């Protein structure tokens, strides 16, 4: 369950563990600018997907050509 970053953040929030201010399920630039304006977030920001790797691809950890780049700080 903690392998999916969005789900992990949600569990952390429910446990009153502080998480980095962010917005999920983003598909358009307007969502980002609205979020930054509403939450008073300044640049820089980070964008990326960081979920669980698809089943059956023969690897067990995070995705990307280099998992260390996909999820910095995991190793």
């Amino acid at each position, binding site marked *: 369950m903690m392998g999916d*970053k969005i789900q992990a953040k949600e569990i952390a929030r429910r446990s009153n563990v502080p998480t980095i201010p962010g917005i999920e399920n983003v598909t358009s630039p307007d969502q980002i600018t609205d979020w930054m304006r509403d939450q008073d977030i300044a640049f820089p920001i980070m964008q990326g997907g960081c979920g669980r790797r698809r089943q059956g691809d023969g690897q067990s950890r995070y995705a990307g050509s280099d998992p260390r780049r996909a999820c910095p700080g*995991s190793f």
Partner: protein
Amino acid sequence: MVRVDTPDQIPGALAQARSEAKKSFGNDTVLVEKYIEHGRHIEVQVVADEYRHVVHLFERECTLQRRNQKIIEEAPSTLENDLRQEICVTAARLMRRIGYTSAGAVEFLFDPATQSFYFLEVNTRLQVEHGITELITGLDIVGIMLDVAEGKPLPIKQIDVVPNRCALEVRLNAEDPKTFGPSFGKITRLRTPLGPNVRVLLGAAEGEDIPPYYDSLFMLLMTSGADRADALRVMDRALTGDLRIEGIKTLAPLLLSIIRHPKFIAGDFSTKFIDQHLPELVSGFRERTSEDEMLRVAQYVAEISALGPQSWM
């Protein structure tokens, strides 16, 4: 992850992030977060049993990274005590909430500017750097994992865990310390540090080959001391006086430059430290070889010949 610094970068960065997410995870859902400048990577070691007992073993500082991979870790971190208490209790609360068992680490990003910490992820495994937590707590984390796996309760309560030392770990990777390119071949000479407060975990021996196919880490060097300065002093001695690795390049010169850097000694660093200071760190390299040792012996003999026996002889 794609960093975005200005509004006009948003559309392009979003398209790139969605494309990468689709390829990597099978869907193009994207997460956007505030980027924490000068962040520090702090992780809390936790052990838990199936009876909902959760104990934290305090935190580790894992901020020193090159290419997003840790190369120096220390325990505890240089956080103030009240912040340390808060971050450790928070980690234990999260692990209790998810019903975790065994050893695991809760990773946080610490923002020195606001003195805030943020959850990153849970590492549900034994980590490379667990050894320094063992050094400061006197506990055998692997032994606890095995006991918990057999259904035994934790052998400790939170009040029993009292760190009374500081410990440091450096990762000896078989890499060029200037470019971080892999260095493989035969280890023609290997002498590891010995002595009090030094722990070495070794994955290769003299005469063996470092192949190009695997991770470059082949040796962990840990030191401990009564305080951070003491642990650093022992590490300096271990890297300069006792360690000899020939035939391949290692990160040893870089590691030594880092632990001697005034900002590192002062605890003033972020995950960007190596990128920001690399030329300065490289300029401090002084690689020693057998040739250097022969030169030192020759100088010593020349001094005796010229000046005669010294008073201590």
